[in-house]
């Protein structure tokens, strides 16, 4: 009797577990299929967008009139951005597919630059035309390679989930057909590096190595770096200071210094260039109490700091309070002109007014002899270039880096329209509107919690 009952109970338990397991399995499958479908969609979208891209570049080559070329290149730009976006959704993060992504971005930048240009005045040059032809050839190759991968994926029912697994286990991901295919694509893109993108493109990616070489002072040793740090931070003798060198990948040679200050239980980190021992940034990590001084008093502390470190020709450009911390940005001033490529950011703890952060990389590498010229157009003329609906509140002069990465001297206007404030830069020699930026007003939580 008892036996039968036991058997029944066990049988029910077994069936129940089985059913539960089956349900779980089903659910898991549903989720996996869902994830797989997302990957598949991104992959096929990518193929579609590359197809369209190749076709669009091809048709642009055959066009002659400005009215056609501009919108066509704008379309190219849009397609590269879509394709780039598709790649971002595939589980490839650590697979070196980045040459292809980079290539896409560059096609995008190149076409955007031409699309926004006034082609009536400045038509497509011979070189640009040749570049476009080259791009078309490359795009065709990428398209064909990707089509191969796509065909294999469909023929052999390959799943992206397996790609992900293969990448995760990493024993030998080379076995995976999809990974192999994509690597071939990336390899072939590597060969495209000699594409002539034109002078504007190189200017932006120009590296700042020579700027580092231009830093003042001589090379310092680890010990000197330590002493400099102690002096700079006014540390007491019992602080533990560790100095390390930056790795090979760093864009410039520098020491990384970490300090443990026992008295205030804070950790201070800073980086100092090997050449000349200039601090590039400082960050102090300590518990900041409730604010006892105002943002304005914090500003006085920040300015004291600047003065002490011989950066006295600076003007405050922004100040923001984040509860008990004040963050101030200063921009260099030369002959009453603001030099925007050279800024310094300072972080002040509003409990006791200590400087707990400094960021001066731009300032350091942006240093050079600049000629401030008398503007070719007057302030009145520059004002005339503004949208008449704007109400001008403040006027300054400033040097900024424009979209092409060149430094240009501008009139700077702070103006309002309705409740919005804008910062507008008008080129002081050509009258061109170089930059318009809407200045954000603080963002009030709509519905916190």
């Amino acid at each position, binding site marked *: 009797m008892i036996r039968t009952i036991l058997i029944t109970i066990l049988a029910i338990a077994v069936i129940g577990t089985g059913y539960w397991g089956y349900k779980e399995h089903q659910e898991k499958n549903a989720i996996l299929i869902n994830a797989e479908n997302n990957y598949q969609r991104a992959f096929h979208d990518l193929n579609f967008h590359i197809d369209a891209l190749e076709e669009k570049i091809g048709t642009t080559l055959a066009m002659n009139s400005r009215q056609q070329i501009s919108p066509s290149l704008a379309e190219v730009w849009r397609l590269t951005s879509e394709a780039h976006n598709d790649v971002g959704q595939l*589980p490839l993060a650590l697979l070196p597919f980045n040459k292809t992504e980079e290539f896409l971005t560059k096609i995008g930048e190149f076409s955007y630059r031409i699309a926004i240009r006034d082609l009536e005045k400045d038509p497509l040059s011979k070189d640009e035309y040749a570049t476009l032809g080259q791009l078309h050839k490359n795009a065709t190759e990428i398209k064909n390679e990707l089509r191969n991968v796509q065909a294999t994926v469909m023929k052999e029912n390959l799943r992206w989930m397996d790609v*992900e697994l293969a990448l995760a286990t990493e024993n030998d991901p080379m076995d995976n057909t999809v990974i192999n295919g994509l690597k071939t694509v990336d390899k072939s893109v590597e060969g495209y590096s000699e594409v002539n993108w034109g002078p504007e493109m190189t200017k932006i990616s120009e590296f700042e190595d020579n700027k580092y070489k231009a830093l003042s002072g001589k090379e310092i040793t680890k010990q000197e770096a330590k002493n400099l740090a102690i002096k700079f931070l006014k540390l007491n003798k019992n602080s533990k200071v560790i100095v390390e060198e930056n790795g090979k990948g760093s864009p410039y040679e520098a020491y990384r210094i970490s300090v443990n200050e026992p008295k205030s239980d804070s950790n201070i980190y800073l980086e100092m260039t090997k050449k000349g021992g200039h601090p590039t940034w400082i960050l102090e*990590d300590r518990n900041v109490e409730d604010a006892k001084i105002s943002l304005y008093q914090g500003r006085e502390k920040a300015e004291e700091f600047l003065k002490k470190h011989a950066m006295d020709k600076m003007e405050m450009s922004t100040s923001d309070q984040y509860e008990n911390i004040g963050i101030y940005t200063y921009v260099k001033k030369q002959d009453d002109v603001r030099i925007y490529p050279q800024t310094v950011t300072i972080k002040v703890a509003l409990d006791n007014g200590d400087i707990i952060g400094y960021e001066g990389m731009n300032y350091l590498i942006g240093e050079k002899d600049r000629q401030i010229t008398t503007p070719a157009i007057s302030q009145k003329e520059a004002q005339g270039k503004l949208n008449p609906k704007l109400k001008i509140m403040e006027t300054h002069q400033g040097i900024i880096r424009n979209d092409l990465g060149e430094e240009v001297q501008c009139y700077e206007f702070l103006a309002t329209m309705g409740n919005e404030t804008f910062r507008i830069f008008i080129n002081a020699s050509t009258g061109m509107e170089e930059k318009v930026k809407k200045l954000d007003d603080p963002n009030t939580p709509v519905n916190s919690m």
Partner: protein
Amino acid sequence: MMKSGNLFVKVCLSLILLVIPLLSAVHVENTDAFTAQVIQHGATGEDVIELQSRLQYLGFYNGKIDGVFGWGTYWALRNFQYEFGLKVDGLAGATTKLKLANASQYHEGFVKRNIQKGKKFTHYGGTPLEKQTQKGKAPAKKPTGQDGKAQPKQPKQGKNVPSGYSENDIQLMANAVYGEARGEPYVGQVAVAAVILNRIESTSFPNTISGVIFEPRAFTAVADGQIWLTPNEQAKKAVLDAINGWDPSNGCIYYFNPDTATSGWIWTRSQVTQIGKHIFAK
């Protein structure tokens, strides 16, 4: 029962409304209305609320009274200084505050109650206060504790957010930083946040915060769900520092833990530095 309850509330409200102007009338006589601080652009807090309320009372300020000294407040203050023959510097110093306090009224109770309740309201002079607040239920309910006691005051004041980012962006990044690098030194957390920002700039990664963070296989914390842990204040501070320009990674777009990294490829990247357990690479 319900009706009499309503009536009671109404009577109370009207009593309060009657009393407030009296109270604040006394308040105005008091010349040290503000605290002693000089209020400048970017400041937050009670003094800013008072400044905005008083400027609005006189019709200079038309924006929202939220306690954040933004551009709207700045222009309003400058206009006030201009009209009242003061030095136009956009700083609320002693003289400016005194002039402002004497020229305007500040219904502190009314303003704070409305901010607390998250109601839309204005504070113009010459219009009865009850007409300047949103009727009906406030959109955001005030949280009350289990035992009926009000929870610690969480005034719904505005916050400063670095230009170009929303509070939600910062929250999302803080989630990622906390999921990826809690337990790391502070500077390592700033570096992780900086890597996210560097990826947005980089040509070989998506161009948005969410695109970078949710890129499949990019962050382990996203893959295993740790990104949905509630981040602490430190993670948020690290994100703010990174957005404000600190980059302890010197422009890196990768980082990995050498003990757990499964990909051999990551070792081929050129390394910049190691912070805590993470190696940062280009």
